[in-house]
């Protein structure tokens, strides 16, 4: 309970922090005032159409990645699982890359995220076909690895054959992941998918708790593993596909956040779900504030910063676990 309040408060504080940080130097109180009351200046437009959707997307993307990371770790009973594992983020990235390469992304505003989402849906269908309705969790991992490998090979192929160096540069920058210059159109595109994903993943807590004892024991306790797996795959795909479509590839959130929060919820997989959603939102908000405050004129990419912070953090966690194991 205290953890829930603490994490919620952290998200609120960082949300406000995200609203008041940015390129145009406006005093915080004036910026927040302009958000609520149209004062006729460009500040209102900046607040309502640039900073608000950006902060909202940070919350949505962070919560989606944290939640799906916790759910996948719970299902696979492996703390190294992360949302990218089932191959959906790789496929979404491929869709975006194709949209940039073909020039489709210039034809209308949402062409890129729509192409990414379409490819993510395709990847999910492929996973369901490959992993089958009643396979073990290992087949899901293998199917995910295969699809990730295929998507990354095709992405490399597109880059390799790209006749247009600008498109290639665009692709590389897009793949680093960012929340810059997003609008409410992105929010409305991602929200329905993410909401479905959140609802599906919120319903797996009981099954994940039972899986602490292994698949056989969980099944004997009345858990329908097939239904659980379907909800997990579809929920993760909806969350991660939509997140990648609007923000690009942002790693480490889904891996590190459940790791950090697991000891604080007594390692219960169901409690880790909501905690990781809040924690993921806080982490992406904080990172998105950092990219704007650290190098305001250099467009530091969110995904790059996240990996820079996330990898050492992860190393530290492994080091700590190693000491506990010894």
């Amino acid at each position, binding site marked *: 309970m205290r953890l829930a309040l603490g994490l919620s408060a952290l998200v609120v504080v960082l949300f406000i922090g995200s609203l008041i940080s940015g390129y145009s130097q406006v005093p915080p109180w004036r910026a927040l005032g302009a958000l609520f009351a149209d004062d006729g200046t460009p500040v209102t437009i900046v607040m309502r159409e640039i900073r608000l959707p950006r902060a909202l997307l940070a919350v949505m993307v962070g919560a989606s990645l944290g939640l799906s990371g916790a759910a996948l770790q719970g299902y696979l009973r492996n703390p190294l699982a992360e949302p990218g594992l089932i191959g959906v983020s790789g496929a979404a990235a491929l869709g975006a890359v194709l949209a940039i390469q073909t020039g489709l992304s210039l034809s209308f505003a949402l062409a890129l995220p729509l192409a990414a989402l379409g490819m993510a849906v395709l990847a999910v269908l492929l996973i369901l076909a490959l992993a089958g309705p009643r396979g073990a969790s290992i087949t899901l991992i293998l199917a995910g690895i295969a699809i990730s490998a295929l998507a990354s090979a095709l992405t490399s192929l597109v880059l390799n054959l790209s006749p247009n160096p600008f498109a290639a540069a665009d692709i590389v920058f897009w793949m680093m992941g960012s929340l810059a210059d997003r609008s409410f159109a992105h929010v409305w595109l991602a929200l329905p998918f993410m909401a479905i994903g959140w609802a599906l993943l919120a319903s797996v807590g009981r099954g994940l708790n039972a*899986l602490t004892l292994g698949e056989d024991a969980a099944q004997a306790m*009345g858990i329908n593993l097939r239904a659980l797996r379907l909800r997990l795959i579809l929920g993760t795909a909806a969350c991660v596909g939509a997140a990648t479509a609007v923000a690009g590839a942002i790693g480490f959130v889904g891996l590190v956040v459940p790791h950090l929060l697991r000891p604080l919820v007594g390692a*219960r997989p169901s409690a880790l779900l909501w905690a990781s959603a809040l924690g993921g939102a806080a982490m992406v908000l904080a990172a998105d504030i950092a990219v704007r405050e650290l190098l305001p004129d250099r467009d530091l990419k969110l995904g790059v910063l996240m990996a820079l912070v996330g990898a050492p953090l992860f190393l530290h966690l492994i080091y700590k676990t190693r000491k506990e194991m010894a």
Partner: protein
Amino acid sequence: MTLAAFSDLTVTRNGCPVVDHVSLTVAPGECIGLIGPNGAGKTTLMRAALGLQPARGHSSLADLPAPDRARAAAWMPQSREIAWPVTVETLIALGRIPHLPRGARPQPADQAAIDAAIARMGLDSYRHRTATQLSGGEQARVLIARALAQDTPLLMADEPIAGLDPANQIATMQVFADLAAEGRSVIVSLHDLGLAARHCTRLLLLDRGRLAADGPPGSVLSAENVERVFGVSAFYEQTALGPVFQPMQVTR
């Protein structure tokens, strides 16, 4: 009255019958020991009976809808998995999942069942310990308590006493015998025929998937059965301290 009835249960793997036309009924108050050499089909029989393994034939448990089955029979698998470093009490509380509607908070009755299971297995001082940091034998006792917390008329456990020290082996078998005395039933697979002879009310002897003998320990553990199925000779006598069974020599 029967708690469960299995008829002609058959499981084939690559065309070979692993469990071969096994039929039996379980009455309340039975502590049933499932014995047989490695690979005789003990685990497969129990999984098939629970509907965890596709099988031909008929099992009254497998026919139940999954949530009802979970309130009729508890299952402790042989692989003792504890995936996350939860506390012992949290782990044992997982046994209440079949009794809790989705999202419901544990009721006093659930806590009572958890406390009873902890008391039965003598785990009171372990309550707040981290389950993954316990020794293998301690983990086994915690997992037995988890199955007990499920509070079902039938408990099925796959080699629950393997790896336990002698005191805990005897105590655990005594827990199963007590459950039977209270009118529940237990099916437990085990390799310690001495403990099976002392604590079980009935033994099932499996031999290459077939039910070779079914009855009270005295008749199932006959010299002829033991020699034919296990390939050992044995010392078996009723003493003032109860039945004593000790395998002696390999005969083949």
